[in-house]
């Protein structure tokens, strides 16, 4: 792996980390406000997290 690749990989992971944190925070706040909607919120959270993860892994894979 060359240096630009490594820097790019680091940036991808930072971005994905921020994104996942935001998703988690949003879900937590939603659950705290409406505990009865926990199941639905969790499902939506996992889907969004999976999409984000797919993007992050995809870019890591393409930049390899």
């Amino acid at each position, binding site marked *: 792996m060359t240096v630009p690749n490594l820097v790019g990989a680091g940036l991808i992971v930072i971005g994905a980390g921020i994104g996942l944190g935001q998703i988690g925070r949003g879900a937590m706040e939603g659950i705290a406000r409406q505990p009865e909607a926990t199941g639905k919120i969790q499902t939506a959270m996992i889907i969004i997290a*999976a*999409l984000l993860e797919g993007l992050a*892994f995809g870019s890591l894979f393409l930049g390899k």
Partner: protein
Amino acid sequence: MPIFAKILTKGPLLKGAQMKSRNLFLKTLFFSLALAFFSVSLWATDPVKSDEPTHEEPADQSVSTEEQISEYIAHHIKDAHDFHLFSYNDASGHRKHIGFPLPVIVYTSQGVRFFMSSEFHHDDSGHQVVESDGVSLVKYHEKIYELNSGEHAVSFDEAHHPTNAHEVIDLSITKSVFGFLMVSLLMLIAFRSLAKQYKKRAVPTGFGRVLEPLVLYVRDEIARPNIGEKHYKKFTGFLLTVFFFIWTSNLLGLTPLGFNITGQLSVTFSLALFTYIITQFSGNKDYWKHIFWMPGVPVLMKVILAPIELLGTLTKPFSLMIRLFANISAGHIVIMSLLSLAIIMKGSMGASGATILALGLSFFLTLIELLVAFLQAYIFTMLSALFIGMAVQDHEHH
């Protein structure tokens, strides 16, 4: 009610002579396969002829330095032509490999050739030449090459590409294909027995009690809400198959057998391809209209959006493919890296301390991987259902 149910419940088998004969057939099939499995493995544990160590590798071939460990992990992640469980050095210093061979089926320039991978004698550097009915074959980095006629040894250029050999069409039963077949067989046995039970009773017994809630979960929590009440029945079969196949393969990957089925790009590619084809072929008029001529936006926008939307149909299965592959591969790499801490830290922590550290860390990571195994199957199924749902749902026109 085959083997699982019997183990789980220890209850009586289903009554009825016909049922019994079918059970007998299934059990016989299962046991004969298991027997074949173990007999082959026993045969393979006979001391494998240890070839003269090649000049590239150290004499004892043990894995001790960091480079060797990363090479070993990279090798584990890849598909292989034989089962390799472990290796050790015997008293005379020869490297012994324990495992069993798998059939190699290759389509060469001279036609199809079939032999067991034990003929390569665990050689992966291209030095062991297998003569098979007029064709010389070598295995290099788990790829099988056919030597050009008249050549007796393979030679490589600087980039490690063979110069006097060409690739063959490889249809071998590799480790992953073997695992694939094993998972299919397990699923066939488990779900066939579950399906059969519903003819006799409303509530399944034995292992069926474990499977029924999972099947209902996929149907009621994944297929029904995402695809819609009207169409979900058509796609539940596919979603169930994908879910249980991925989950079982992921779990099989956590056993010490060294499977890495869903960590193969070709496997995840095929799974994603199914989702892609099913989505495109079940798409209704609205779906295609929203791709090629998006309603409700200016004409210029429609022209710009069409290629983007068309590309979007491809990126969805692409991300499905990469996600599963990357997650499972990453899990395997991390677990193996933590295990090899025992080797790396041996100098600074002592053998026992390093082993305890490596085992402890990898134990907890394996627990997380158990969760990931389920989660990835769930996500793949969920997103497949979502994509199919997008294609088949009826839009309300405003």
